[in-house]
């Protein structure tokens, strides 16, 4: 029986919700032309079907991806889900359908458009997550460390565990300005909190002193005879500079 394609899915925007879309598509033999969530309400000519998030179904799908395709495929899908790729849900669905048909080899089929799109996007998310491990800067306010980031993708789930492992005894807050979410780590507890706006407060004397020391170190360590702005820009794209202490006023 041919799959029905003249339909759109509406889900709650969570990863589990997306897995439920996969579940629905599989069992109802539907291939939605669009999948979107409540926040990005879209115009569509197709009838819209609301997919209710069901944890058990989501778990089943997650398990089956690991089993029938591979752990690597699951990782790719998860990274893509956090990306800002256009139509990421439909692409993920198509990728998984291929995967269920072909098996673990699917991740090697880099010549296929969907696989390539998924792989590229996942790499992009992974690399942005890594960049923030490098370029994120904390300032201290009364013993609490605070940072602001402005990522294209939603990197907090990938980036924050690194800082929790690194600073188990600290309290810190990382504010994602793009997605308006704060990650808070306090007494070993981790929380994601929606937060409309947030700016760094005025630094105290000690904080100012460390900023000045760091800037001085940064400027002194460069070797004049080898100045190479292009290389610097290549390694450290300019869009990260705005929140880095060494480039602050």
């Amino acid at each position, binding site marked *: 029986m041919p799959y029905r394609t003249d339909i759109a899915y509406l889900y709650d925007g969570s990863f589990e919700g997306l897995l439920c879309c996969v579940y629905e598509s599989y069992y109802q033999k539907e291939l939605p032309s669009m999948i979107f969530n409540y926040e990005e309400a879209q115009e569509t000519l197709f009838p819209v079907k609301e997919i209710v998030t069901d944890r058990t179904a989501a778990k089943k799908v997650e398990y089956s991806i690991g089993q029938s395709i591979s752990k690597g495929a699951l990782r790719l899908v998860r990274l893509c889900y956090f990306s800002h790729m256009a139509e990421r849900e439909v692409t993920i669905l198509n990728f998984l359908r291929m995967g269920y048909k072909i098996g673990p*080899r699917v991740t*090697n*089929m*880099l*010549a296929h458009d969907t696989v*390539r799109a998924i792989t590229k996007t996942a790499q992009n998310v992974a690399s942005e997550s890594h960049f923030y*491990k*490098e*370029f*994120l*800067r*904390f*300032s*201290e306010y009364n013993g609490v*460390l605070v*940072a602001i980031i402005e990522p294209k993708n939603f990197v907090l789930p990938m980036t924050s565990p690194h*800082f*929790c*492992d*690194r*600073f*188990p*005894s*600290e309290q810190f807050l990382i504010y994602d300005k793009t997605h308006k979410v704060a990650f808070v780590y306090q007494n070993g507890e981790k929380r994601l909190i929606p937060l409309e706006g947030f700016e760094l407060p005025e630094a105290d004397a000690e904080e100012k002193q*460390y900023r*000045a*020391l*760091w800037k*001085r*170190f*940064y*400027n*002194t*360590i*460069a*070797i004049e*005879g*080898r*100045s*190479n*702005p*292009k*290389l*610097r820009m*290549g*390694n*450290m794209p300019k869009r990260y500079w705005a929140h*880095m*202490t*060494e480039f602050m006023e």
Partner: protein
Amino acid sequence: MDILEKLTILTDAAKYDVACTSSGVDRKGAPGSIGNAAACGICHSFSADGRCIALLKVLMSNACVYDCSYCVNRKSNDVPRATFEPRELAELMIQFYRRNYIEGLFLSSAVVRNPDYTCEQMIEVLSLIRNTYRFRGYIHVKAIPGADDKLLTALGLLADRMSVNLELPSHDSLKLLAPDKSRESILVPMGRIKTGIHENRTDLAKYRNTPRFVPAGQSTQMIVGATPETDYQIINLSAALYKKYELKRVFYSAYMPVMTGRNLPSLDTKPQLLREHRLYQADWLLRFYQFDATELLDEKNPNFNPLIDPKCNWALNHYDFFPVEVNTAPYETLLRVPGLGVIGAKKIIRARRMGSLDFPDLKKMGVVLKRAQYFITCRGKTALGLPSNPEAVLRGLLSEQGAALAQPPMEQFSLFDHTDSTKEDLVKCLTGQI
């Protein structure tokens, strides 16, 4: 003297040291402590020269009692002197680390009073950081040549990596420019570190709680361009160091003429950056591409061709090795194709299991063909319209690089200038096209 001024002097004095990688150990965080270490290394910033900043790289002191003529810190030079208090340095480092400015510490020092005293001061800094602040991140320390064995061991137990600078590529050059140091005073601690690592490994196997002795291994650095050694001598020396002392890395540093001296190149000498770059490329070939030093150069051709990279150079001299069929060649053979890196070769191996590959497939997969196309076939066919004899290939390669060659070397080869960190080693260079 305030700490800002000290930091300025002691950073300035340390900046010519090129080794600044934070990689080689994986250590998770632990409750009640601060820090962890990632084997892949993490860069935290890039300075105006494009180099990675991973570690707080400073000298303990620049008040040297020695007089090496290539060095700004030598006794007879008139420069401002400073020395960190151990406490002050430890606190500074930890505060930088908390703010995610750095990945750890790279501590070196001029010889203050004598080698033993210097070493003791450094031990104090490290033990404050490790034991008082309970820091589990990365520390690289320079062994001080001439210091007591026991002190070196104590230092090594607190650090992740220890290195001794070879300084100059030959015995004669060392005698000429660094009269207070001898080849022995450098090689002895190097050998000592190697033995230390070995003994530690056996101890670790026996007793579970043995502290780790420099778990990330040792590295060294030499200055090129201050003395007359050829590339052939240098690369052979590196190969021997990798074998004999089991070094993790050899760093090369183009001589920067900051000093005048009887035996030194004149001040207007340009640093040999392109040469340094070629040495790094060759070093890569030794470490990751299974090349032998003697394959790359010989006594008749003792220096690298400035126009093309060492791998291309080798390929053009071994043209009968090519073309390589991408659908059947083993991994080691693919690695020898100019323009094909470790990642490119692995991609090919993976993808060809799915079916045979042609040129458009390679392109789609993101394999860079610019140089590789001259040396490979797909299903027995060469890329369309390409020449097939060495001279023509060289001409082809150079004409593609021709425009770039008109620019100054640093610009042109900036793509490869990832000499500072092993993260880049892995992520960028390997994807790149050595």
